[in-house]
Structure formats: C-alpha cells, structure tokens
C-alpha cells in the first residue's frame, strides 16, 4: 500500500458509507485519519441503519451525567467520572489524572481484601469523586518515584513508578491489608473485532506450561459472567470480562455510579435504560481502528523486523481473522491486526499490582493491543500514558518496564544499538 492508494481510500470511505461495502482485510476497514478524532470513526462496513445506531451510541458515550433532572440523571452519588468520554479521551485511553477540577478522574483504583473479597464500605472500586455535597470514598494522590536506568550503550533513561496515597473521607489511610491496583482507562476502539475473534484462535496461542520452551506462557483468564457461566475473559486490563455488554454495564455502575439493567445499583435501582446501554455497547463494538501511517517507510519496515526478532510478537500477535458468528455482521470474517494475544502473561515484579483478579495473579496482565497506539500523543493533545497505570510517558518507557515473561524481549531492546531501538519505536508510532 502506498500513499497514493491511501489517498484513494480516504475518498472511498465516504462513498463506502453510502453503499456499505464489505471488504475483508485491514486496509479496507481501517480509517484514514491522523487527527485527534482518529479513534472515533464507525466501521466503514456498517449498514446505513447501523450508522444511525452508531451516532446514538456516540451521543451516549459523550453524555455527561448529573445527579438529577431531565437530562442524564442518576450520577453517583460517588463516581470516578461523569461520562464515558471523560476517561476514554477521544475514544482512546485516559491519563493518570485524579481529582482534577475540570476533568474529574481519568484513572481509578481497584481495591479488594485477600481472597478477592470486597472492602467493607467501598466494594471493589474506590470512587474518589462525589456529587456536590456528598462525600467520596476519599482522595487519591499519586506520587511519582523516579527510577534511573541505562541502555547497554551507556545512554541513560528515567522511568517513574506510582506511589498511591489514599486518604479516606474520614481522614484515615486505607487499612494495610487492602490490595490496590491503580488503572487508567484503556482505549475503546477496535473492541468489537476483539469480541469477534474465535475463542479457539485465542486458546491456540495459550501455552500455560510453556511447552515450547520460549519462556512465554500465555494463559486464558476464565471468568464467571453475569449469569454465572464460566467464559473466556477478553476485556479489562486483566481480561476479567467476557464481553462488551458486561464491560460497558460494569463501567456505568462502577465508574459513574449508574445502575443499569445488567448491573443495578446496590439498592436495585436502574438509572439508565436498556436502550442507552445497548447504544453505548454498540458504539464500543463498532469503533474502527485508524489506518497505519507510512507502513512502507524503510525505518518502519526495519522496526517491524526488529519487533519480530526481539520476540515482541510472541505476545503482541500481529494478526487474527475474526469468526463468522458475531451478531454484528460487519465484524465477521475480518482480517485484523491488534498486536495482542488477549492472554495473561506474568510481567514481573516491576509491573505487578499484587492483586489477583479472577484467575489472573498479581503479576499477570493481559497483552494490550497496540493498534492505533502511534496516534496516542495527538489524541491526548501532547501527553502519553501507557501500561495499566499510565506510568510510562513514552513508548520507550513502556518497553523498558516489561519484565517476567517479557524480560528477554526487554533486554533485547535495552542492549540493542540506538538505530535499531529508534526503528522499533518508528514502527510502533506507525501503528
């Protein structure tokens, strides 16, 4: 694909909306947009009626909730943010912002007692915001601790690690036995495609006992869904949720304090309609992935080779083909490039949160997809934040935090000459 062809596609997409073409393969279904809105486009192969549904979902995703009144009532009283878009900035990720006067909190703190038990009075999620006049669970302050490191060639780098300081509403700290996990909101686009990847394809990548002796295991997180059925977890930073309906409904309840038909609030109240929930779910299922920039650039191509050589793609699996049974036809039989295996990996002590979640241990995290990651800075308006808690300020830092199963890949990067490191980063920025 050359620049010339991509220009043609830019024109084609609009026409595609009208005629609803169905193209298999990433270039047919990706969006040519390098702007801050790059993550917010519908799949081009939706039907006209589905495009309308997407627009409703877009409105639902942007809707700001308040405690009462005609429009979007039911917020809180405790919450992390007031809208989906408040954390998933531009349909992408959030920053590790807590208690900001304009933006509320774009991250959150999961809490539990040993044995995956809820914390009395709080539950599993700490809500550091509340409607005016009510008390939040407390405040979250993040102190960043700098860590110095060095590449094999002697050039220095700096990483930072969060130290979370929680103050409860009554002024006391969290009891010492409470396990915590600081999180930022992950991106929302491309999720429908992940939902449509056949389970067998994901399980085929799993190697829990590392029988091929490559140092990489990869475990599925088997989770109980809302009806108590054991299913493969795909969503969430530890893959603890099986589908986007549950993911979205849980976010409404836990992040915004909005009881909904799937998860009513603790008093059984339902504050958003099935219609609103469905619209938001459909939206997350049909947000497209932006097209790559300059995939044929020689440095980018070199970086792609380096990505494979260093073993990154043992977990960041470049390609899947979706199955043919997703309820949304547009998601079926698509070749996609998520750069993820959707499996859990032990990422070492450095990244551990020490808080087990389903079958995921305190050191395990789900491989995050890398598609679209090169536009992060543009979408966030000049900042970047990677990894589960947003500690990495650049892609380079994110790589350098890898440990555990990814230790060898990280070391390959750390000891590589500068031009190869630059090439790898150029490749990531092209995604």
């Amino acid at each position, binding site marked *: 694909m*050359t*620049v*010339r062809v991509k*220009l043609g596609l*830019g*024109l084609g*997409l*609009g*026409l595609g*909306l*009208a005629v609803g073409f169905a193209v298999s393969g990433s270039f047919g279904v990706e969006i*040519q*947009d*390098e*702007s*801050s*809105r*790059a993550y917010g486009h519908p799949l081009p192969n939706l039907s006209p009626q589905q495009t309308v549904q997407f*627009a*409703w979902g*877009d*409105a639902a995703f*942007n809707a*700001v909730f*308040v*405690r*009462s*009144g*005609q*429009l*979007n009532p039911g917020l809180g009283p405790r919450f992390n943010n*007031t809208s989906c878009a408040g954390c998933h*900035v531009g349909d992408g990720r959030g920053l590790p912002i807590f208690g900001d*006067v*304009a*933006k*509320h909190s774009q991250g959150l703190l999961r809490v539990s007692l040993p044995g995956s038990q809820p914390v009395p009075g709080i539950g599993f999620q700490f809500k550091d915001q509340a*409607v*005016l*006049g009510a008390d939040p669970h407390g405040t979250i302050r993040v102190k960043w601790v700098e860590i110095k490191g060095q590449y094999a060639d002697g050039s220095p780098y700096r990483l930072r690690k969060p130290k979370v300081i929680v103050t409860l509403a009554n002024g006391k700290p969290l009891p010492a036995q409470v396990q915590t996990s600081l999180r930022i909101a992950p991106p929302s686009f491309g999720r429908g495609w992940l939902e449509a990847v056949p389970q067998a394809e994901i399980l085929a990548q799993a190697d829990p006992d590392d029988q091929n002796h490559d140092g990489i295991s990869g475990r599925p997180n088997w989770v109980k869904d809302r009806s108590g059925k054991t299913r493969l977890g795909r969503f969430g930073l530890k893959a603890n949720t099986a589908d986007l309906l549950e993911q979205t409904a849980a976010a409404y309840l836990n992040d915004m304090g909005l009881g909904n038909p799937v998860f009513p609030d603790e008093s059984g109240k339902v504050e958003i309609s099935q219609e609103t929930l469905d619209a938001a779910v459909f939206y997350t299922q049909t947000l497209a992935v932006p097209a790559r920039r300059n995939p*044929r*650039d*020689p*440095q980018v*191509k*070199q970086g792609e080779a380096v990505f494979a050589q260093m073993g990154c793609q043992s977990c960041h699996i470049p390609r899947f083909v979706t199955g043919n049974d997703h309820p949304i036809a547009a998601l079926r039989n698509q070749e996609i490039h998520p750069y993820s295996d959707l499996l859990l990996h032990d990422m070492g002590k450095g990244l551990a949160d020490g808080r087990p979640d389903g079958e995921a241990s305190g050191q395990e995290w789900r491989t995050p997809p890398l598609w679209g990651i090169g536009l992060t*800075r*543009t979408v966030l*308006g*000049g900042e970047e934040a990677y990894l589960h808690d947003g500690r990495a300020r650049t892609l380079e830092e994110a790589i350098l935090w890898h440990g555990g199963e990814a230790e060898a890949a990280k070391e390959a990067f750390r000891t590589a000459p500068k*031009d190869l490191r630059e090439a790898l980063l150029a490749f990531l920025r092209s995604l």
Partner: protein
Amino acid sequence: MRTLLLVVFAFFASTHAQADYPLAKSLADRVILPTYTELVTRLQGLEGAARSLKAKPTPTNLEAARTAWKTARIPYERSEGFAFGPIGDYDPLLDTWPIDREGLEALLKGSHPLSAAAFAKLPPEVRGFHAVEYLLWGLKGQKKAAQLRPRELQYIELASADMVRQAKANLQAWQQGFYARFTRPSDLYPNEAAALDEIMRGLAGIIAEIADEKLGNPLRANDPLVAESPFSGNSLEDYRQDLEGARLYYFGGQAAEQKAGIAGWIAAQDPGSHTAILRGFSLTKEALASIPAPFAAALQTRSGQARIKTAQAALQNLRGLLESRAVGLVRKQQSPFDQLRSQLRAVSDEYIGEGEISEALEAFDGVHAAMANLRPLLSQNPQALQALEQALRNVEELVHSGAAAAEVKAALEVVTQSIAQAEQAGK
C-alpha cells in the same frame, strides 16, 4: 545494507521541508485565534454586566446581563467546529451540559463561602455558560430581577469572571505553544495530512453533532430541557451559530466569492463538489432557520418535529458531502510539492525498498497526478518546471528498464534537488 538505508533516510529527511502548513496557518490566523480573542472580549462584557447587576439588580441590568450572555455565546458556538487542542482543558469549565441544578441550588441556599478561591474548586457541573444561564433566566426563563438573591448575584459575577479566566488561558495556550504545533511539523501533527485531517474531521464532526446530539437528543427524549441552552430559549440560536461557525471556517473567514480557505482549495480541485457543498450549507441554514422558535415549542408540535427532522437530514447530507468529498480533497492539499515527494517516496519504497518494478511503475500514476497539481504553480517558471519534468522522466525510464537500485537512487536525488529548486522558484 545499513549504508544504503542511511542514504535513503537522508533522502527522506530532505523531503520534509519544515515549512508552515498553509491552510492550518491561515485558518488559525483568520478564524481560530480571532474567534477565541472575541470570546475573551465578550466574556469580559458579561463579567462587567454581572458586576453591574450585582451592584444594582434592576430589570434593565438583568436584561443587559442576558444580552451579554447571548453575545458571548456566539463566538463560543462558532468555535465548536475547531474544538481541538487546548480547549479540551477548558471546555468542561466553560460549557458543561447538562448542569447539576440540584447541586447548584443547594450550594446557593447553603453557606459555602463564595470567593474566587472557593469557586475555583467547584466542579464543572456548576460552572460555565449554563450555570450562569440558569441563574439569569431561571428554569422556565421567567425569572424577574427582584427574584435574584444576593448569593446568586455574587455567584453570577464569580462564574462570569471565572469564564474570562478560562477563555484567556485557552487563548494563551493557543498563542504560546499550540499555534506552532498546529501550523508546522510537530509531535502532534508530524505531517501536513494530520493537520488537514484535524481541520476537516472537526468540521464534519460539528455538523454531525448538531444533527445527532444537539437536535437528536431533545427530539428523542421529546423534552426541551434536554436541549442545550434551554433556560434562555437560545437553543436554536446556538445551533445556527454552530453552523455559521462551520461555514466561516469552510470559507477561511473570507467572503464566499474570495475562494479562500478550504472552500478555495475545493473549488479549484473539484468545482462540482464545491458547488454541492455550498448548496449543502445554504440548504442546512434554511432548514435550521425554518424551525420555528422557541425550540421548546417546536418540539411539541408535529410540524415543528417534522422541520427538526428535515434539518437533521440536511445536516447529515452536508456531513456526508464533507466526508465523502472534502476530506479526501483537502488531504491532497499537502502542498503539491509535498504531494510529489510522498508519491516519489512510494516509487522509492517499491523499487529500492521492495524491488517491485511493476508496482514502482504503477506508483508513477501518483507522481503524474501530483505533477498535474503542481504544473500551474510553475507556470511562471518554465525552466524550473522543465528541469523537474526531465529529472522525473529519467527516473521513470530507469525504473522501466529495471536499472540498478543505486542508479535509481541517484536519479531520485536529482529529482529531490529539482523539487527544492522549483519550490524556491515557485515562491
């Protein structure tokens, strides 16, 4: 291998001249910064009116404050088509909708200190345009000056002063950093296509937002209090100013006949699309104008609802036109010189990078298309044009004959120089 790559890198590096992005710069200079400057001025007007109202809460002063609010609302709505960059940090404090009416009422009835410092800690749901609007008009728009309580008057003044602060900070953030990042190669917009996408996607986005959210939400809920600016009855005027802002943006802040901005470019590239888009703008404007005011009443009648739906359809049509025609055309605006460079890069990637002769030859279609855009720019400089055409012919012949990569690379370097010279000459 390493050496070859390095040479190729040098070639690519030189293809990216660090020039300004002309369309981004002209829109920032002529539309974006003037609109945000106007917003500051008009919000200062609102602050002044709020101060007078606090000093003397007379019906005349209330009316003056309401007028000042409506006046300040105009530049804000007009800016919604370019709501990227710093405004993301300030929009929540200026324009959160809906507001937390219950929280605001409780706050005003209580004893929460009302100082600038205390106000600065309040959440966005009780600040900005709609909080002030609610206090100036009341829930049903029928508030009398005599009903204004002292704490309300104080709050209106504080909130207006805070809006001035936010608008100033936004303007400053544009002037002191974002302007440079938007109008030339930067971490946010590494190439012109990215800046052009930002312009066009925002333009299409506001048109869609008027249809889907601003008109769509209240229509679906069948409730006027769901519409933006319901207390002042200003909803329709808001939407008209959204559209007017988009129109001014499209014309680059110039009169339609000047053929400037996005419009000028599209008119030159594809007059048919330009005409269709112009027609789309005027049909949309008419459709919005034909919704009878106030919006609250229009929502209650069958004929009003029909007109809202007609406006939605017109807006969707305009959005479709912009997305299917304008986005791609404007993307091509990457200066014709840069276009040519990226097309040559495609040739080079195929031939030197991949060794694909037939695909490299195919990539010449793009080179020829780029040259067609470029020729008119060099009509005054036939020598520069001739040198460039000759250099391109050389490369094409070499590719055709399957020449060695090194030879093609050398010929491409000659082209690079010819482009640079032609670019100088064309200025």
